[in-house]
């Protein structure tokens, strides 16, 4: 945990540092990057030759007519083509006569300047967005990794062993010399284990009590461990489960770099118990245009087309050739648990990342939370219910305020309203 915290913080520090270096004093280009992502990235690659729907924009300013041509083109390319601008007509026909969106009225002059500044600037470094989990507000400080408890225990054991052997030999020799001076016979040369057995036989009661104590502690830890058992991935929980999906879909590219909101694809998260795996038609909203990806090229996106029965060259769908995608479910709950996404997202106002981790940085989605009952319960014990402004809770809020009247620092956490009751999740 500690090391992971450190990792996140380190990455974010690195990112922030880079951002500062890149964009200090160039706020325009930063805005431009954002605008470009929102408006242009669907059809244009900003700093490569890669052709999406529109041409890649690497070196675009060397190709096009100088002056404000580019600005006019961005704002209203239709007018220019109709107006008979030669270069405009040329690129229109070069790109399969696919019209570009008219941005007049959507982006103002300043925005266009910013986009141009962004395009003229260096290629952006992929920056991990979002706050690091657990590292809020500590960007300036170096987070030291703690010593792993395992090493600590091992070290202690080694130390103890050294102490025992040293003291034992010292004691034996001292006692032997004492015996010698007193004329008693020397103690028989016992091995460590013989001696231990000898000691045990002399302290039966103590050893018995110790055994019982240790036995109970063992049972307790077994019991505790039971709470963590999950049948899925590692021996304890399925944490870290990251199966290879039928399509190498990267959340890093979609949610991270392109900043597509989680709810765009997982669009039932606010309505239903399921967040929803997007249907293929949702993919096709963008991928009808974006036919090539930055890492895998056409191969992976072609799988979407195969699923949707889409022919990218003719841009036509064939309903008879559809083929559903079988994604592998990463976050699995047993059947006897009822979990509702909308409850947590809409009512509880919980961020997706709280349970799913920094999905924006994941190429392959990995289960970050253990999804054990302990994990659920722990969160219910510490999370406050968002009662303010929700009229449903008015009566309850009043009753709780009355109940805990005079008590300082009482938080109305989920467990206080019955969030730990069996029948709330198991029925």
């Amino acid at each position, binding site marked *: 945990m500690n090391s992971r915290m450190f990792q996140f913080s380190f990455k974010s520090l690195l990112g922030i540092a880079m951002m500062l270096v890149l964009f200090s004093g160039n706020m325009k280009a930063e805005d431009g990057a954002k605008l470009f992502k929102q408006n242009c990235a669907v059809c244009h690659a900003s700093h490569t030759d890669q052709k999406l729907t529109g041409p890649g924009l690497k070196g675009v300013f060397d190709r096009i007519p100088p002056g404000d041509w580019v600005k006019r083109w961005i704002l209203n390319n239709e007018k220019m083509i109709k107006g008979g601008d030669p270069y405009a007509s040329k690129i229109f026909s070069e790109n399969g006569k696919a019209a570009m969106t008219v941005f007049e009225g959507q982006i103002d002059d300043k925005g266009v300047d910013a986009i141009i500044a962004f395009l003229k600037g260096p290629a952006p470094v992929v920056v991990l967005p979002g706050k690091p989990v657990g590292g809020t507000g500590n960007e300036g400080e170096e987070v030291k990794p703690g010593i792993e408890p395992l090493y600590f225990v091992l070290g202690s054991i080694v130390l103890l062993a050294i102490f025992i052997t040293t003291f034992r030999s010292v004691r034996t020799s001292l006692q032997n010399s004492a015996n010698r001076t007193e004329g008693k016979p020397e103690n028989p040369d016992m091995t460590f284990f013989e001696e231990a057995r000898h000691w045990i036989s002399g302290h039966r009661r103590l050893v018995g009590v110790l055994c019982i104590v240790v036995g109970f502690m063992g049972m307790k830890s077994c019991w505790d461990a039971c709470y963590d058992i999950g*049948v*899925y*991935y590692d021996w304890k929980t*399925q944490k870290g*489960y990251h*199966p290879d999906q039928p399509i190498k879909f990267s959340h890093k590219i979609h949610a991270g770099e392109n900043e597509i909101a989680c709810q765009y694809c997982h669009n*039932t998260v606010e*309505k*239903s*118990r*399921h967040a*929803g*795996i*997007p*249907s*293929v*038609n*949702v993919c096709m909203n963008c991928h009808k245009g974006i036919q090539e990806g930055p890492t895998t090229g056409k191969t992976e996106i072609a799988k979407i087309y195969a*699923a*949707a*029965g889409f022919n990218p060259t003719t841009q036509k769908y064939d309903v008879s050739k*559809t083929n*559903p*995608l*079988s*994604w*592998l*479910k990463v976050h*699995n709950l*047993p*059947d*006897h648990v*009822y979990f*509702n996404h*909308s*409850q947590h997202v*809409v*009512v509880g106002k919980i961020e997706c990342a709280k349970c799913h981790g920094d999905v924006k940085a994941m190429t392959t989605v990995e289960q970050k939370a253990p999804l054990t009952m302990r994990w659920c319960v722990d969160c219910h014990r510490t999370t406050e219910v968002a009662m303010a*402004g*929700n*009229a*449903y*809770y*008015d*009566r*309850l809020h009043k*009753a*709780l305020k009355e*109940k805990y009247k005079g008590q300082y620092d009482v938080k109305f956490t989920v467990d206080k*309203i*019955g969030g730990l*009751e*069996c*029948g*709330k999740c*198991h*029925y």
Partner: protein
Amino acid sequence: MSMSKKYWRGLSELNESPEFLKQHQSEFAEPLPIDEFLNGEEEEKSGTSRRDFLKVMGFSTAAVALAACETPVNKAIPYIVKPEEVTPGVANWYASTFYDGHDYASVLVKTREGRPVKIEGNEFSKITNGATSARVQASVLGLYDGARLAGPVLKGAYTTWKNADDAVGKALGSGNAVLLTSTVISPSTKAVVAEFTAKYPNAKHVTYDAVSYSALNAANKNVFGKSVVSSYNFNKAKTIVGIACDFLGTWLSPVEFANQYSKTRKVSKENPEMSKHYHFEANLSLTGANADYRYMVKPSEYGKVVAALYNEVAGATGGSKVSGETKLGNAEAEKAIAKIAKELVENKGNSLVVAGANDEGIQTLVNGINKMLDNYGKTVDYVNHSNLKQANDKAFIDLVADMGAGKVSVLMTHNCNPVYTAPASLKFADAYKKVATKVSFSIQMDETSQMADVVCPDNHYLESWGDANPKAGHFSLQQPTINQIFSAPRYEGTRQFQDTLLAWAGVKSNYYTYLQAYWQNHVFPQQGKYLDFASFWAHTLHDGVLKVNVAKETPAVVMAKDSAGMPIMSGIATAIAEAMDSVKTEEVKTTPVKETVAAEAMPTPDYNKAAAMATSVKGGAFELAVYEKIGLGNGNQSNNPWLMELPDPISKVTWDNYITMAPADVKTMGMNEMLRQDIMGSIATITVNGVSVTAPVYPQPGQAPGTIGLALGYGRNSKALKVANGIGVNAFGFLNVSNETIQFASPSVTITKTDDTHKFSATQVQHTIMGREEAILREVSLNEYKTKDQEVWNPATLIQTHDGKVPIAEVDLWDDYARPNHKWGLTIDMTSCIGCAACVVACSAENNVAVVGKKEIGRTRDMYWLRIDRYYSSDMTKDKAEAEHIGYKQMNLDLETPSNNPKVSFQPMMCQHCNHAPCETVCPVLATSHSNEGLNMMTYNRCIGTRYCANNCPFKVRRFNWFNYNANEWFADFNPAQQELGRMVLNPDVVVRSRGVMEKCSMCAQRLQAGKLEAKKAGAPLVDGSIRTACQQACPTNAIMFGDVNDENSEISKWRNGNRNYVMLEDLGVKPTVSYLVKVRNQEEAIHNEEKHEEHKEEKHEEKHA
């Protein structure tokens, strides 16, 4: 103590022979064949030792165990194109119509991810008002019945639709075709039939109802000149008289009538009035069980009762009397008739007499009585008549004769199964064989389909478009809630009956378009609310129902077609004009209802002839009355395991039909007169006119002496119907034809005892309350309720403490816990509850309650979360024992025996969610605990199955999963969860429980959580009534109320603040969350002994002083 004796295993040990000594060293007398087992022939070479064997064993065990630890891979397969209205995990609701040729109900269908999982009542309906019945609730399972046909069948083998169409088309080309259906209430289907008969002029449409109401039509024809079935308004009736008419359970439109009836029985402090219900019958029906006064008469006496009542009413209203025998075997009943007539006349215009017998004479007299009582247009209405049960028995009888004479070349049966249901005397099966081409539209391979040449399976009603006009002025739409389950490419597929008929009639359009066109032309013009058809259609489809103020006849005529052969459905702009035109043109042919009546002269009914007809039946020593059961009805849903397992509301017997006889008769015949799970019942043979069946005998209190009851719907004879095949006997054979109507009673029966025995499986074998009325089943007469103190009939439970007697609420062993948010409560009005068991099926459907089968029920291992306890009254009471000095033992023995004609009480019983729950304190693993909303929660995944909780439950509502019902092969044939299709009906929000865990009513926790979540998401307080439990929603009589007791304005708080509220076994101090309202009976006899109460009062008074 040391052993001085020594034992030898044999002489060789005693003598210590060398062979023995050698053998003594080895553990086994002979070497075990382990090596052989492991290695076979190579034993010598490898020399596998026992250790190796164990190693191999250990390795394989470990390997298996490790393999089990592998990550199970779950897949998530999203839609290619997600339908806009589907949100995975969120239910969609569609309004639709349930009509199976027998019952009608307007329903809402709950679908999850595109599959229907639950049926609920549609509250927009002015007919059923959101009510449902057990059969309506269970109908969703029929959709997933494995016995359904997956495509057309030609000569016993699956074929293509083209082949089937060709085969039928060829046959239709020549000869006489007859379409035999049960009553069609769909106006557009009638038009489709008209299209068909227009194409084939030799084709004829005959209506046949398995359970016939032909006499109702005939009687209305006799009295009012209109061959219709009247509609009834029980809600306006103050005095109701039923003569063998189970209108709450099975007669005509029971869902509608139960709802109306209950409205007259909502007794409260503010309105302490209720209807009074008299009932005459032979079998103890559900309606008879709910009557205030019930008289046992034989079926042959029904006519005499009606004639006597007619004469009494005529005497009081100045009408002329009829002649005829009116002497009854039951003197008490005979005496009562005068009194009943007096009350009827007192409530002139607010009374209702109904009779169930399918006898023209009886029904004509009943019409006469209602007419004299001025009830027409008030409680009974032939103008706004019902469209149900239009069959004319004579047409069917003539048809069978024609078939036998070879005059019918094609017979097409839809929504009926005459081979199974026709009276034996008609010899339908023989006549059917003589038909050249037999076509069936049945969705299953039933008895008729088995004999048919071509089976063209219809869609299930949940897959179909359709409409209904159940009553004049009331329309409802039916819409598909799932794609056809059996469809291409996997199957040839089913096809809706109407589509098939349209195809055969050569109409190009499909039925959906046709239906819309029909509605645009004939229904849309009748309403004035919507101006364009598109929004009219959308809204009506959403609501499911439409009520028009002025009802016009919906014509069953061919529709105009355009050049392409499609029915003309004019554009929105011209819709009204065209529609009006079409109505105008049709008015020439079919004039509106009212005018018909006004135009035609009223016939003069001959009541004397009717009386002669009604009273002419001579009864024998034993008479048979065939009846419908609440569960199976006419048997069209008998392959439904939910209905098969549903305990009969009266007898509580499951998976069986049986001969019901009066216990006294059973005893006289020397048969077993007890019902217990460990005693075998007797079996007897009954014979009527040469037809005989052998069935077990059930001693039924309340059965008129000298009568025998036998239920319809059982004894199915088709291997395809896995659930129903061979269960019980078929009683349809006993229907007989007299006066050209199908009769359900046989006046002369011989019954002979056999030596065989039969094991009944009943969910309740104890009959009476054993004198514990005050603790469990509180009742009061209306008179006492109005005049006496609540202390008399609903006293607070007192408990003895060292300070004297105090109310139990003041003494508490346990701490009280706060319920800061909601405090759920459930209250059951026992006056309203009629015991119809709709809630039982609804609960099973909602909560995935397992079907366990006859054998397990016989071991008292039924899984019902909600049961309805039925109690009979006994002649013995504690007061009587005291007064007559009857000993304690004798009193208790007598208390066990129900009266010959008992009063019946129904008490729905589910987990009482005790606030000081005895089950919770004994669970060793805290698998059952209490929520801060007052519910007792059961956590299956924690339960280890000690069953301590069930032992400690005072209400015996906990159910233990003895088997893995959803996987164990013993239950494979009938447990829906085990079938590929059947498991589709499971509610995905509720866990399917496994073996070894306890389960019980959760008060629909899934609905509570969902309802609360909706409120939380909306950021608004929970609205009272927005959460309803499955049982509450299903209840046709609104007898169940659920809500938040913390909310002072909630409906349940109002119920509980009334003076009838009490909780069961209050003296235990378990503080149940469920409460009951005292049952009020509209009877003159006092139920409570006032003297005794006064004594109590004095005692208490003294104690207080002391």
